[in-house]
C-alpha cells in the first residue's frame, strides 16, 4: 500500500474529527521526517494497522456502507447452522434499528428509508409495533424528540447468547472486517454469554425483548420486598377460620339463597327455569366435592396475612353479612366444574359504547358512551318488566322500553367528553366514571345523581377502579400518571409517575396495599400505595397492555394486551409464569374466579375464554425442571354472536357475568 495514501487518510481523518492541532503536528512530523518514518508507531509497515486505517477512511459517511454491511451480516446469519441460527438472528434486530437510526441521525433520509423498507419484513413478525413507531422518524430532530428512539439510543440491549454463537459472531465480524457492524454491536448490545448448548428457539421471551434504559433499573426495583398476602381479618379470612361451619347450617343457607339466586335468574332470563334448577342441583353437588378441595388447598398453602397500611372503611354489618353469606355459598370452580356465564348484550349502541361495568352482584350494569352519557341498567328490574317482551326472540329492541314508554335505564349526565371507564363500589351504592374531560365523577346509584367531581389529571382519564373495600380508588390517565384518591377528598392522595407512556389500565391488589398499572410502554408496574413507589416492573408484553386482573390470593396477576396475549405473572419474582395464547384480538377484560382457580378473558374477537390457573401453576414448576415450554391450558371458548366482550365479572358466588355491545358485521 502506498505510504502517501495512508498519510493522506490519516490527515483527512484527523481533520474530520476536528483534531486540528494533531493534524498540524502530524504534518509537521511528515515534513520533518520527510518520508523516512521514525514515528513511534510504524503504521506504514504494519499491514494490520494500515487496513484498519483504510477501513476508517472508507466508512467516512458513506450511507451505502450500512446497507452492504447489514445485508452481508444478514445473509451470514441466515445461512448459519440451524442450531445457532435463532440466537444469531436475535442480534439482527438491534443492529437493524441502530443502523437505521444512524442513517437518520446523519441526515440520509432517502437511504434510511430505502434501508428500512428493504429489511423491515424480517422483523415485522415480532416487532411490528416498534417498527411502526420508528418508521416515522425521518430527521435527526425527530430522533431527539421521540422518547422511544432516545431510550433505544441510550440503552443497551441485553441478548442472551451461548458461548459458541458468540464466538461465531465475533469471528465473522473480524474476518470480514466490518467495523461498522462491530461498532454498532459494541455500542448497543450487551451480550450475556452462557456456556453450554443454545436454548431452544422462541420460548425465552426475555431474550428477544428490547427494553429501554430501565432493564437494570427494573431488575433493581424488582428486588424490593412486597407483601402479597391477603389482609388479616378480612372476610375471607374470617370465613376460613370459623370456616367450614356445621354442615347443616350450610345446607340451610344454601337452599335459602338458592331460592334467591334462582329468583334473580328467573328475573333476568325467562324460560330457563328448568336449566337453572338443574344448575342449582349441580352446584350443590359441586359444593360437596369442593369442600374437600378447599381444605386441601388451605392446608397446602396458607396464604400469608398482612396488615393493611391504609385505614380501611368500616363495613356495615348488613353488607358484611350478605357478603359472608355469598362467600359461604360460593360455587367451587375448577377445570371440571365450569361456571355459568350470563351475557349482557347491548344493542343499538351505534358504535358509541366505550365501556361497561358490572356490579359485584351482577344486578347493575353501567355503560359509558362516547356522547359523554352514562347509562345504568338494573337487570333485576328489566327481568321483571321485560319478561314477556324477552320471549320474542330478536326484536326485543323496542319492546324492552318499559311499559309506559319510559326508557329502561337511568341516564347520568355530567361529563363533557367520552366516558372511558366506570366502576361500582363493592356494595354497589356508588359509581365512579372517568372521562376524556380529565375528570372523575362519583355518582350515587341510590339517588341517581352526581356527588363529587374529582379534578387532577391533565389529560383524559383512561381507567378508574374502586379498591376492593371501597372508599379509595385509583385512576390512570394519558398524562402518564396513576393516582390514588379517597372518596372524601377532591385532591389525589398519591401520584404514581414513572411510566414512559399512557397508563391504560389500573387494578388493585386484593390486600389494598398495592395497585398495578398497565401502560402503552408495554410494561406493567406494581406500586406501593402507602409510599407511592414503584415496587415491580413486569416486562414482556409486545404491545399496549389493556387489562389487568389480580388473583384473589394476591399471588398472581394476569395482564392482557392489544395482540391478544395474556400473561400471568408471579408478583413476588416479577417473572412471567406463562403466556396464554389463544385470542387473536385485543383482550378487553380479565377476571379471576372467586377462589382463583379459573381465569376468564374477554376479547374483541367475540369470545370468552376460560383458562385453568391451578393446573398451569403446578405444571410450570414441574416443567421448569424439564425445561419444556409451558402453556396455560385453555379450558373453554364461548363464542358470542359478533359481540366483542367488554367486561367480565365473577360474582361472589362465582357466576360469571359478561357484557358487550352487539356489533353488526360489516355488510
Amino acid at each position, binding site marked *: 500500500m502506498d505510504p502517501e495514501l495512508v498519510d493522506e487518510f490519516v490527515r483527512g481523518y484527523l481533520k474530520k474529527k476536528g483534531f486540528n492541532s494533531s493534524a498540524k503536528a502530524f504534518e509537521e512530523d511528515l515534513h520533518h521526517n520527510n518520508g523516512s518514518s521514525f514515528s513511534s508507531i510504524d503504521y506504514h509497515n504494519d499491514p494490520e494497522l494500515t487496513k484498519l486505517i483504510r477501513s476508517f477512511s472508507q466508512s467516512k459517511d458513506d450511507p451505502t456502507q450500512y446497507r452492504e454491511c447489514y445485508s452481508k451480516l444478514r445473509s451470514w446469519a441466515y445461512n448459519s447452522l440451524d442450531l445457532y441460527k435463532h440466537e444469531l438472528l436475535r442480534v439482527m434486530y438491534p443492529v437493524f434499528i441502530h443502523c437505521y437510526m444512524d442513517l437518520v441521525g446523519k441526515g440520509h433520509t432517502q437511504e434510511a428509508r430505502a434501508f428500512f423498507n428493504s429489511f423491515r419484513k424480517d422483523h415485522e413478525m415480532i416487532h411490528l409495533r416498534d417498527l411502526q413507531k420508528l418508521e416515522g422518524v*425521518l430527521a435527526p430532530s425527530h430522533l431527539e424528540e421521540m422518547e422511544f428512539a432516545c431510550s433505544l439510543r441510550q440503552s443497551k440491549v441485553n441478548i442472551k447468547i451461548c458461548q459458541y454463537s458468540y464466538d461465531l459472531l465475533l469471528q465473522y465480524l473480524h474476518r470480514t472486517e466490518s467495523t461498522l457492524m462491530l461498532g454498532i454491536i459494541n455500542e448497543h448490545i450487551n451480550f450475556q454469554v452462557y456456556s453450554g448448548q443454545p436454548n431452544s428457539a422462541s420460548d425465552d421471551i426475555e431474550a428477544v425483548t428490547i427494553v429501554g434504559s430501565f432493564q437494570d433499573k427494573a431488575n433493581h426495583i424488582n428486588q424490593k420486598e412486597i407483601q402479597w398476602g391477603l389482609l388479616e381479618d378480612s372476610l375471607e379470612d374470617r370465613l376460613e377460620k370459623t370456616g367450614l361451619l356445621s354442615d347443616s347450617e350450610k345446607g340451610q343457607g344454601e337452599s335459602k339463597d338458592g331460592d334467591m339466586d334462582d329468583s334473580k335468574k328467573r328475573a333476568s332470563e325467562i324460560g330457563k327455569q328448568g336449566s337453572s334448577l338443574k344448575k342449582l342441583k349441580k352446584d350443590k353437588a359441586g359444593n360437596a366435592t369442593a369442600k374437600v378441595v378447599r381444605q386441601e388447598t388451605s392446608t397446602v398453602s396458607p396464604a400469608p396475612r398482612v396488615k393493611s397500611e391504609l385505614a380501611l372503611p368500616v363495613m356495615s354489618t348488613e353488607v358484611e353479612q350478605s357478603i359472608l353469606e355469598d362467600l359461604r355459598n360460593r360455587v367451587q370452580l375448577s377445570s371440571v366444574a365450569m361456571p355459568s356465564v*350470563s351475557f*349482557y348484550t347491548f344493542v343499538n349502541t351505534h358504535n358509541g359504547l366505550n365501556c361497561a361495568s358490572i356490579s359485584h352482584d351482577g344486578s347493575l350494569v353501567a355503560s359509558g358512551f362516547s356522547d359523554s352519557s352514562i347509562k345504568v*341498567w338494573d337487570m333485576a328490574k328489566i327481568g321483571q318488566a321485560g319478561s314477556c317482551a324477552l320471549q320474542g326472540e330478536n326484536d326485543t*329492541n323496542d319492546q324492552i322500553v318499559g311499559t309506559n314508554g319510559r326508557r329502561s335505564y337511568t341516564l347520568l349526565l355530567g361529563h363533557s367528553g367520552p366516558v372511558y371507564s366506570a366502576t361500582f363500589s363493592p356494595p354497589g351504592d356508588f359509581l365512579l366514571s372517568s372521562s376524556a374531560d380529565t375528570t372523575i365523577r362519583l355518582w350515587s346509584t341510590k339517588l341517581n345523581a352526581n356527588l363529587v367531581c374529582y379534578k387532577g389529571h391533565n389529560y383524559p382519564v383512561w381507567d378508574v377502579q374502586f379498591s376492593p373495600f371501597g372508599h379509595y380508588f385509583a385512576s390512570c390517565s394519558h398524562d402518564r400518571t396513576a393516582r390514588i384518591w379517597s372518596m372524601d377528598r377532591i385532591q389525589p392522595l398519591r401520584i404514581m409517575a414513572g411510566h414512559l407512556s399512557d397508563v391504560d389500565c389500573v387494578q388493585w391488589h386484593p390486600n389494598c396495599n398495592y395497585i398495578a398499572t398497565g401502560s402503552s410502554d408495554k410494561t406493567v408496574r406494581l406500586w406501593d400505595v402507602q409510599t407511592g413507589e414503584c415496587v415491580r416492573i413486569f416486562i414482556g408484553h409486545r404491545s399496549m397492555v389493556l387489562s389487568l386482573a389480580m388473583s384473589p390470593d394476591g399471588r398472581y396477576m394476569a395482564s392482557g394486551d392489544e395482540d391478544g396475549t395474556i400473561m400471568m405473572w408471579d408478583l413476588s419474582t416479577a417473572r412471567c409464569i406463562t403466556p396464554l395464547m389463544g385470542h387473536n*384480538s*385485543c383482550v378487553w377484560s380479565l377476571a379471576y374466579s372467586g377462589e382463583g382457580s379459573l381465569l376468564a378473558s374477554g376479547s374483541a374477537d367475540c369470545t370468552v375464554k376460560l383458562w385453568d390457573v391451578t393446573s398451569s401453576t403446578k405444571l410450570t414448576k414441574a416443567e421448569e425442571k424439564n425445561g419444556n415450554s409451558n402453556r396455560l391450558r385453555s379450558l373453554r371458548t364461548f363464542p358470542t354472536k359478533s359481540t366483542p366482550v367488554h367486561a367480565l365479572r365473577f360474582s361472589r358466588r362465582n357466576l360469571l357475568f359478561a357484557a358487550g355491545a352487539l356489533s353488526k358485521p360489516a355488510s
Partner: protein
Amino acid sequence: MVTKESIEVIAQSIGLSTLSPEVSAALAPDVEYRVREVMQEAIKCMRHARRTTLMAHDVDSALQFRNLEPTCGFTSSKSTRFKRAPEHRDLYFLDDKDVELKNVLEAPLPNAPPDASITSQWLAIDGIQPCIPQNSPLQAISDLKRLEYKEDPLAARHVLSKELQLYFDKVTEWALTLPGSTLFRQALASLETDPGLHPLLPFFTCFIAEEIVRNMDNYPILLALMRLARSLLHNPHVHIEPYLHQLMPSIITCLIAKRLGRRFSDNHWDLRNFTATAVGSTCKRFGHVYHNLLPRVTRSLLHTFLDPTKTLPQHYGAIQGMVALGLNVVRFHVLPNLEPYLQLLLPEMVPEKQKDEAKRHGAWLVYGALIVAAGRCLYERLKTSQTLLSPPARSVWKTDGKLTNPRQSKRKASSDNLTHQPPLKKIAAEGTMVMTQMHGAIVPAPQQSLVGRDIAPRTSATLTTDVDNFLFPLFDYFGESMLMFTPKHELNVFL
C-alpha cells in the same frame, strides 16, 4: 409517504406559489412524522373506546391532546370506506358518492335511531353453551357433531337433556291431539328456527315414520305430520342430512299413497300439493350434498306416474311432485310420456265414459296438473328463446300498432304472467274462456311462428328444433289452454 411533490401541491392549494425546494424537502419528513404521531394517539383513543376500527373522532380527540383544532366535516357514524386508486398500489381515496340534492330534500325524514338497550342470555350453563338463537350457531353445531361421534347410538337418550325430552313429548302430543291449534303452529315455528334441536332429529324422524303408517286414514294428523317434517327440513341450524333417507320415504308416501284420509270431505289433494312443495324444497336444498336424492325421488315418482294400474290421485301426486322437483324433470320424464298418458286420461274426463262424479273430478284435476306442468315448461322455454323469436317478429309485424314498444310490453307481460299464474281449479274455467275469445286466431298460429323462425339467426337452430320438438305437440294435446302460458308478446307472434 409524504413526498416533496405533495408538499408543493398543498402549498399551491393554499396560495403559496413560490416555495423553495429546500423548504418542501425539509417539510415533507416532518409532516409525515407529525401525522404518525397524531395517528398513534388516535389509535390509543380507539382502543379505549373498545373499538377495532379507527374513526374520524378518534383523530379529533388525538388532535385535542396536542391543543390542535379538530378536523371538520369528516365525522360519520359509519366507518368510512376507502377505495384504491386505479394504477396505484398504495393510494386510497374516500369513496364519496354524488348525491342528488333533490332526492335528499324530498326524502322522508329518517326514523329516530332506536335507543340503546340491553338484553341478557346464558352464554354458558355449567360450562356448556346452550343452543339458543342468541348464541353463535356455528359453534353449537360443531359441538354437537363432536358429541355425536363420541357417543354410541345406544347412549343417545342419555345425552338428551330434560328440556329437550319435554319439548319432544309436548310437540308430538300436540301433533297428534291438537293439529289445528295455535299452540301447534307456534311449535312449528320453533321447530323451524330453533338451533338446539339437533339431538331430537332421530326421534322426530322415527315418530313421523311410525305415525304416518298408523294414521293413513286420518287426514288432519297426516297434514300435521307433514307440516312437522317440513318445519324440520327448513330449520337452517340442524344437521338433517343423515336422517333424510329415513324421512323421505314417509314424505313420499304422503304424496303418492292410494288413500289419504277416510272421509270424502278430506281434501287429500291439498295434502298432496303441500307435500309436493316440501319434497321440492328438500331436493333443492340437499340435492348437492345428497347427490342421489333427486334421482331416487324422481324414479319413484315416475314409476307411479307410468303405472296405469295406480289410481288417479296417485298420478296426481306424482305429477305434482315432479313439477315441484323442477322443470327439467317435467321435460325429460313427463312430456315424452304425455301422449300415451292423455289417451288413457281423456276418456276418464268425459261424463259419457266415466259415470263416477268423484273420479271424473279427479281426472280433471290430473288434467289440470298436467296442463300447468306442460305450460310452465313452455313458458320457461319461450322465455329463454324469446331472443330468437322477437327480432324477426318485430320485423315481420312492424305494421302492428300494438308492437311499437315491444321491450316494454314484454317485461310487463312476463311479470303479469308470473303473478297471474292461475290457481289450479280455475284453469278449466278460464281456459274455456280464453278459448272462446281466441278461437278464430288459433288455426294459423304454427305457420306464423314458422315464418318468424325462418328468419331467425342460424346460431340458434338447435334451440329452434328443441322448441319444435315439444312445443307444438303441446298445442296438439292441450290446445288453447297452452296460450295462457305463452308470454304475451310471444303470443302476439302466434296471433
